[in-house]
């Protein structure tokens, strides 16, 4: 599948062959899918899909380690919190390209929006497995408004932002399907969607942290602070930037055949720019964390087990990456930027897990604490795998990395 090129042959393949089977006959297409990567995928799905069915049929009790004391596990802490934070690239790049006019970064917009859209979509899909009555997912929109809840804000903003990102991504779909008029309408809507998306992102990224504002007595003081909204927003910016670096590196390697005039130097230049932004954001975030620590006067907690863990997060995954990225940029070391971007992204994952699981319920004894059930882990891996599959399916068919030859490129 990876080797296939997107091309329309002269013999005239049918619409289905052209759009779905990458211009191949079904037989060829099937054969092209016999790859090691796909074998691994099949293995994951063979375990994961029965787990999903088991969760739906038998409920949360047998399929998770959730309890009355630990109502939230990795489906919230990882799938939702990390998924949304790492999908912030769409709004960060959208702001840079469409509002600040950084034309150099224009080619990153579509992949970033696609990553963002899928990140949100699959975070919501994972969330539905966590909800006790998942079939009531639209209730906060249509049945009853709990306006005093931070989660109400999150629900609405995530839903609206998903729509925004869909609108931003639509031109690629219409190009794929050769729908010129629709494409024109949606391209006009991009600016509005971007601005609306910035507002929504600022609020729901910080709101995901503000969820924990109601739990001063359960979250460890090193992580609980009135600055949580600010921390979550800033770290989401870091997550978005770092993921854009990682994603552009990966897709320009895996899908390089799609990019006709691929200029590695241009990608390197842009990566250095993104690395610089990540470094600045990391420094800003580091100082916000220090101010929060000082404001809460929580210094004495640093010399405890949780304190050392906190330092691992804040020094090891925020301060050191910030310094390393700065060094890499000044010495034009692109590979180093990419490596430390991965560390920064892992730091965001660690931070979200700390907030939701590791430093949460810290007052409880160890036997009352939460450790994920293997099915929770498998379901998470399955949802991520399906997300990656969807990403690949779209990348192979739609003009995400390259400009569609039949259309005038989007102006940024």
């Amino acid at each position, binding site marked *: 599948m990876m080797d296939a090129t997107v091309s329309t042959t002269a013999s005239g393949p049918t619409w289905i062959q052209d759009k779905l089977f990458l211009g191949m006959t079904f037989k060829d297409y099937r054969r092209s899918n016999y790859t090691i990567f796909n074998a691994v995928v099949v293995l994951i799905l063979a375990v994961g899909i029965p787990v999903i069915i088991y969760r*739906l*049929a038998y*409920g*949360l*009790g*047998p399929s*998770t380690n*959730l*309890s*009355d*004391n630990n*109502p*939230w596990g990795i489906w919230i802490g990882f799938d939702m919190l990390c998924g949304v934070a790492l999908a912030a690239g769409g709004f960060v790049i959208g*702001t840079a390209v*469409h*509002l*600040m*006019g950084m034309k150099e970064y224009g080619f990153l917009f579509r992949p970033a929006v696609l990553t963002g859209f899928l990140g949100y979509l699959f975070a919501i899909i994972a969330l539905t497995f*966590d*909800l*006790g*009555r*998942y079939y*009531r*997912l639209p*209730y*906060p929109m249509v*049945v*009853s*408004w*709990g*306006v*005093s*809840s*931070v*989660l*109400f*804000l*999150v629900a609405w903003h995530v839903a609206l932002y998903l729509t925004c990102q869909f609108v931003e991504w639509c031109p690629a779909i219409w190009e794929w399907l050769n729908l010129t008029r629709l494409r024109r309408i949606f391209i006009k809507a991009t*600016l509005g969607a*971007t*601005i*609306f998306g*910035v*507002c929504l992102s*600022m*609020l729901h990224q*910080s*709101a995901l942290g*503000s*969820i924990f*504002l*109601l*739990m*001063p*007595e*359960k979250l460890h003081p090193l992580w609980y602070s*009135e600055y949580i*909204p600010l921390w979550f927003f800033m770290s989401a910016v870091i997550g978005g930037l770092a993921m854009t670096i990682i994603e552009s590196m990966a897709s320009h390697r895996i899908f390089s055949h799609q990019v006709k005039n691929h200029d590695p130097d241009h990608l390197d230049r842009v990566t250095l720019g993104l690395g610089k932004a990540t470094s600045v954001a990391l420094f800003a975030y580091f100082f916000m964390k220090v101010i929060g620590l000082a404001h809460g006067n929580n210094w004495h907690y640093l010399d405890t087990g949780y304190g050392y863990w906190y330092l691992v997060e804040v020094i090891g995954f925020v301060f050191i990456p910030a310094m390393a990225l700065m060094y890499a940029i000044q010495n034009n070391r692109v590979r180093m930027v990419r490596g430390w971007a991965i560390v920064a992204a892992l730091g965001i994952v660690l931070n979200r897990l700390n907030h939701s699981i590791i430093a949460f319920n810290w*007052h409880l004894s160890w036997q009352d604490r939460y450790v994920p059930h293997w099915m929770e882990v498998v379901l998470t891996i399955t949802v991520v795998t399906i997300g990656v599959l969807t990403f690949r399916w779209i990348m192979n068919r739609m003009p995400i990395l390259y400009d569609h030859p039949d259309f005038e490129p989007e102006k940024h």
Partner: protein
Amino acid sequence: MDADRRTFLRVLTGAGIAAALGAPDPASADVASLPGYPNQFGVLVDTTVCIGCRRCEWACKEWNKLPNQRPLKEYEKDQNVFLQRRRTHADTFTVVNRFENPLDRSKPIYVKKQCMHCYEPGCASSCFVKAFTKQPVGAVTYDASLCVGCRYCMAACPFDIPAYEYDNAFTPQVTKCTFCFDRIAKEGGVPACVGICPVETMTFGRRTDLIDLAHKKIRDNPGRYVNHVYGEREVGGTSWMYLSAVPFNMIGFRTDLGSVPIPTMSKPFLSLVSPVFIVIPALCMGLYSFKKRRDRLAEEDVKKALERKEGK
């Protein structure tokens, strides 16, 4: 005395119902702007009186028709449950725990645990479909027909009260003490647990009166209680309150909760929503118009340069 109390209660209940009917529709009252219900009921639990018979647990299950009910006698006999510290559970709205008494080892302290029915409940402010309502009579009630099952209420409860029916695959509910809302909303009704208690550990009445009673008890019995009515100020005040002979952290209560209501914690953030939607689009449009202008100037420069070249 008894007759007096009954009329007193009747008057109270009458006032409660009048408040329920006359006051703005409680369902539409926002948690963020709770007017406060001055006539709400409460219960004062005197932990120095409780004998640990667990009849209240039995009566609670009986009235709420909870699963795994056993005969009353087994509750009184079974001492093994005290070996572990228990919490509320999907099939148990209230539990009695035993604590060692540092003052007199032969007399352990028994503490009943159930929903505290906060003045401004964290669960209600956490719920994104408003399934929780602070009723004018004091009860915090839960409407399962709205619940999506996100379990934020469980995380947001400072007393770790709401439990979840994890083993119910299709229609799981959050479960917690209802303050016997269906009983106390009726004239003269008292919660099932209060009604069955053989030693009058619990006193049901108007919350304001109970606070007076609690302080009077402390004043009149020097040395019997610590000078603290748990629930009077904790997280903004709760309908259920406790008296104790020993500091409350020794009998399973958290004494680090502070007196700020839980909903207050997220209010500053929620008030940011409208400013963001006003300020950010304006900033964005500003940025965008700068960008447009820059592009136009650059284009003009190119055009001029080309003209100059051609002119030569």
